[in-house]
């Protein structure tokens, strides 16, 4: 058995330039292959897949990603539980590349399409039976190869009649890694969580005006596997848990209002104590209740202060997605592809923030000021160890977050493949993003400046934002309306989540909550003109799933991110009231609680 493992590792590594394998590493790999049936089946079938060339195109690279996950979820409304769910799943994501790194089957709209019969199921068996595992991998890699072969031909055909301005290669080189964590599970107490979620959801029973509310808890834990034909072998423990709260009501004028919150942890056994969760639930209830009584916001252009976690939220939303960059997929000429380009594309070397601001993305950081960070990870989805990156230095964009898909202006992957994506390309995302300001002032003084700015320009009030709807808790319908309004408003740009808690601040310091406001075309360009930053840092954790506005519940694959930012003051942003007809309030009053 031992011997077998040795041979296998040699054959795995043989595809790339066999490095001088460190005997300690070889031993570690052998031990893992001999004791972990999933890893062993993956290595054996990947080894066989390298010889796939029946159709005349050799495999130059192949990889297998798989998760061995167990999940638990339970939800409740007004103290009554929906049935708890426990699931085992082992999603499988194979990728085969044919052609060459200069030109291969990925990055085209045909990359995921195979016209023949499909025999694989997209998942591994749930048990560690090597034959059954290999059988599933055999069928999955076979289809991945045929898909690659078919895509390469169609991609080449689509490009035949086109002159590419500056052809880019399709695959950046990377150094193979071996990362083998010992699989370990933590205990999740289903009954205790069911009870806790019920009790937390019962908080809303004290708020009869709230028409819909719910509390959900989800925990997922397991092992993530990645191996490729270059000799990378990765096995890491992967866990996440979150509690999600949402509440909605209809104001007297018919406006539908909602708010939500999430509390996450990379360790399901170490979620914050119930008291802290209860405070989050109560805050949501208070927020929607206060919003229902708040006056409607009016169109506004002027100074805006993002205070506390709202500053981290707006950085997360605007920079979180735009810092990652993927190429537009190849398609037949004339075909439109609904892929949003990054606003930061082509802006390397240009100023995107004030000279006194830096942005640092640090996946290696586990906590900040004693509080755990959500963006920590060891290895990305390409099997690359990420390092700390200064993305913006003294206001100038220095680099972007990359995967192994080559992008213009940069020279290699920096380990930010965090979400699986279409077209054989992964999606880069931030990890722990630190907004660092070298000039700061106290928060009261920021507020004072805000009020003075408003006064100077003759405005009656200025705006402070303490919470935005990012990641959005809205329904798809809410999202559609926002997108439609963003399109109509003429300000352009991608839709940005609406403010939830926006306050008018009057000259005497008095505050008034207003509702129904939206940003009018807020984008990265506004950040160049940030006037000032506070001297306290605020952390905001969230789950990204690749969906627009990171819409809660929209994607099945989530990744944790944290943003740490001071409060920031913008000299001028535009806000406008939500447009559209309001539904009438219900004819029948709600039943008593």
């Amino acid at each position: 058995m031992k011997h077998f493992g040795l041979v296998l590792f040699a054959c795995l590594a043989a595809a790339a330039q066999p490095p001088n394998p460190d005997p300690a590493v070889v031993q570690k790999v052998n031990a893992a292959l001999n004791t972990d049936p999933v890893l062993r089946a993956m290595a054996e079938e990947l080894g066989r897949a390298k010889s796939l060339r029946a159709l005349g195109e050799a495999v130059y690279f192949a990889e297998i990603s798989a998760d061995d996950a167990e999940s638990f979820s339970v939800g409740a409304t007004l103290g009554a539980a929906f049935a708890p769910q426990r699931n085992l799943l082992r999603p499988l994501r194979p990728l085969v590349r044919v052609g060459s790194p200069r030109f291969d089957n990925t990055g085209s709209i045909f990359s995921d399409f195979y016209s023949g019969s499909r025999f694989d199921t997209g998942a591994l068996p749930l048990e560690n039976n090597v034959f059954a595992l290999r059988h599933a991998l055999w069928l999955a890699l076979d289809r991945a190869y045929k898909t690659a072969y078919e895509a390469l031909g169609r991609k080449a055909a689509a490009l035949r009649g086109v002159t590419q301005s500056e052809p880019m290669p399709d695959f950046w080189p990377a150094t193979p890694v071996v990362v083998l964590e010992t699989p370990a599970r933590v205990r999740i107490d289903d009954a205790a969580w069911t009870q806790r979620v019920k009790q937390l959801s019962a908080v809303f029973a004290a708020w009869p005006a709230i028409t819909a509310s719910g509390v959900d808890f989800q925990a997922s834990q397991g092992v993530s596997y990645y191996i490729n034909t270059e000799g990378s072998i990765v096995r890491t423990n992967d866990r996440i848990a979150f509690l999600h709260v949402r509440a909605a009501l209809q104001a007297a004028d018919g406006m539908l209002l909602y708010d939500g919150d999430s509390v996450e942890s990379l360790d399901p056994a170490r979620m914050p104590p119930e008291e802290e969760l209860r405070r989050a639930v109560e805050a949501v209830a208070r927020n929607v209740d206060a919003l229902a009584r708040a006056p409607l916001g009016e169109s506004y252009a002027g100074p805006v202060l993002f205070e506390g976690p709202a500053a981290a939220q707006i950085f997360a939303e605007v920079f979180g997605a735009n810092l990652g960059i993927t190429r537009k997929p190849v398609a037949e000429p004339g075909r439109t592809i609904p892929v949003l380009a990054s606003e930061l594309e082509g802006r390397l070397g240009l100023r995107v923030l004030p000279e006194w601001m830096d942005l640092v993305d640090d996946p290696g950081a586990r906590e900040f000021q004693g509080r755990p960070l959500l963006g920590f990870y060891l290895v990305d989805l390409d099997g690359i160890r990420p390092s700390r990156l200064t993305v913006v230095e003294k206001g100038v964009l220095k680099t972007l977050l990359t995967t192994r898909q080559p992008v213009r202006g940069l020279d290699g992957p920096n380990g930010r493949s965090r979400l699986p994506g279409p077209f054989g390309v992964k999606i880069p995302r931030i990890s722990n993003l630190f907004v660092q300001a070298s000039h700061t002032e106290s928060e009261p003084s920021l507020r004072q400046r805000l009020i003075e700015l408003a006064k100077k320009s003759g405005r009656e009030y200025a705006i402070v934002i303490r919470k935005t709807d990012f990641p959005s808790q809205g329904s798809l319908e809410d999202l559609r309306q926002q997108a439609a309004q963003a399109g109509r408003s003429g300000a352009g740009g991608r839709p940005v989540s609406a403010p939830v808690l926006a306050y008018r601040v009057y000259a005497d310091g008095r505050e008034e909550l207003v509702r129904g406001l939206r940003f009018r075309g807020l984008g990265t360009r506004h950040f160049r003109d940030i006037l000032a930053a506070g001297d306290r840092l605020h952390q905001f954790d969230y789950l990204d799933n690749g969906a627009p506005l990171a819409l809660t519940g929209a994607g099945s694959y989530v990744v944790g991110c944290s943003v740490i930012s001071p409060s920031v003051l913008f000299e001028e942003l535009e806000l406008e009231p939500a447009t559209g007809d309001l539904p009438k309030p219900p004819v029948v009053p709600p039943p008593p609680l």
Partner: protein
Amino acid sequence: MQILASELERNFSILREKADPPPYYISYRVTDLDSGTLSASMGAITQQGQNRRRNLDVSVRAGSPKLDNFHLLKGERPRFTASAALPVEDSAAAIARIAWRETDRSWRAAAQRLMQVQSAIRMQAPDAETADLPDFSEEAPASGFAGVPQHRFSPEAWSAKLKKWSLIFAEYSPLISSNITLRWRREVRTFLSTEGTRVQHGRNFYHLEISARAKGYDGNDVTSYELFDAEDPARLPADEAVEKAVRRIGGQLTALLRAPAAEPFVGPAILSGRAAGVFFHEIFGHRIEGHRQRDETEGQTFAKSAGKPVLPEFLSVYSDPTLRRAAGADLNGWYDFDDEGVPARKVTVVENGILKTFLLSRLPIPGFPRSNGHGRAQPGFEPVSRQANLIVESSRQVSPDELRELLRTEIRRQNKPYGLYFEQVSGGFTATRRGGAQAFTVIPLVVYRVFADGRPDELIRGADIVGTPLASFSKILATSNRPEVFNGYCGAESGDVPVSVVVPAVLVAEIEIQRKPESKDLGPILPRPPAEGR
């Protein structure tokens, strides 16, 4: 039930008084599902899960029974319910609030469509046949409570068996993928309406499905499967029977890969009971669904055929949702009440070849003003008339051997080189709409050539049936005396509903097949990994 009843009445009385337009009918339909899946392939569990959920469907009718928001307009199939999840705990506060929210939502949708309907019909020339038909039939309120058994059932015990059986397929090396899946479900349906209907009933389903697929060297896909359905897990097949079925499928697929391809052919054939079941369901069953006779976009094959012959005179067809077992098997298609709260009852659809009535929901059709308990829907859909247990009886019955002899006689009479025996067909689909070809598609999976001279039958592959429905039916010559059961799920405009067909094997004078358009893609390039670890 009490929680829902008081919320239903509270909403209805306030809406009657204050809403414009007021509803004249509201129903609450709650489906409480407790289900599970266990699946194995190549000796390992590939899928397992249990799921409990409750759904609430609220249907609101505004206007009047004469003309309401459900009125059919140009084939549009309106839906007002949105199937909201309810907690599985009987909490009055939580359940009442969701019911209130859903009633409000459904009423808004109903009110909006009623206005569209009212303005649209003013623009249309009245249709003589449907102009006077109301949109909702008058029915007496029903009440009834039927307990639903909680069977003792252990997924763990099945897990080991599924794994063992699934590994038998590994002995058949040409197979590419195979699967054994067990699904179980306990359904409790609660239905309340403002007419006073209060019913609660339900049943259990246990379903074992064995399937395997392979691909010939020429790219031809072959598939075979067997299904077992039972209402009580004690009536699922015995271990030996499942093992035999696995080996039968394995052997059959291996043989199919070597079988000659079908040639275009017109001639006599026998359809086994389970193959005939699919045919009756697709070709006949969908065309006796009442609502299709009123929808102007439908072909309405039988709309004017009531009282006229539609089948050979030795055949009678019943729809009997009260029948729980037939021919030694549990039936999928029984229920106590339909999804409009109307009690199930046996309906004679065809008597001695003559069409008597249709399968009816509360949507009246010309000549048939009342429901006969066939309004069915999957949670989340509005009910329409659907099949339940379709039972075909024959007065021209012969033994299976005699039926084969009749086939040989027919082969000789028509001077054909051979006849066909359809042992297994896939679930099919049918186009009943006017725009379509009024054709049906049933894909034969296991077909034999039968020779007049008594040579052994010859398996063929890749046959595809061509033809139009009515033609196929006039050509039934005789049936066997051994009814068989086909259990399945039928998908249509009101979602998936469980159905059964009970029918003996039939001999048809003429069926037409052509060669199936084949896929040409290659099978797996590398050989299968070795079965024994190492």
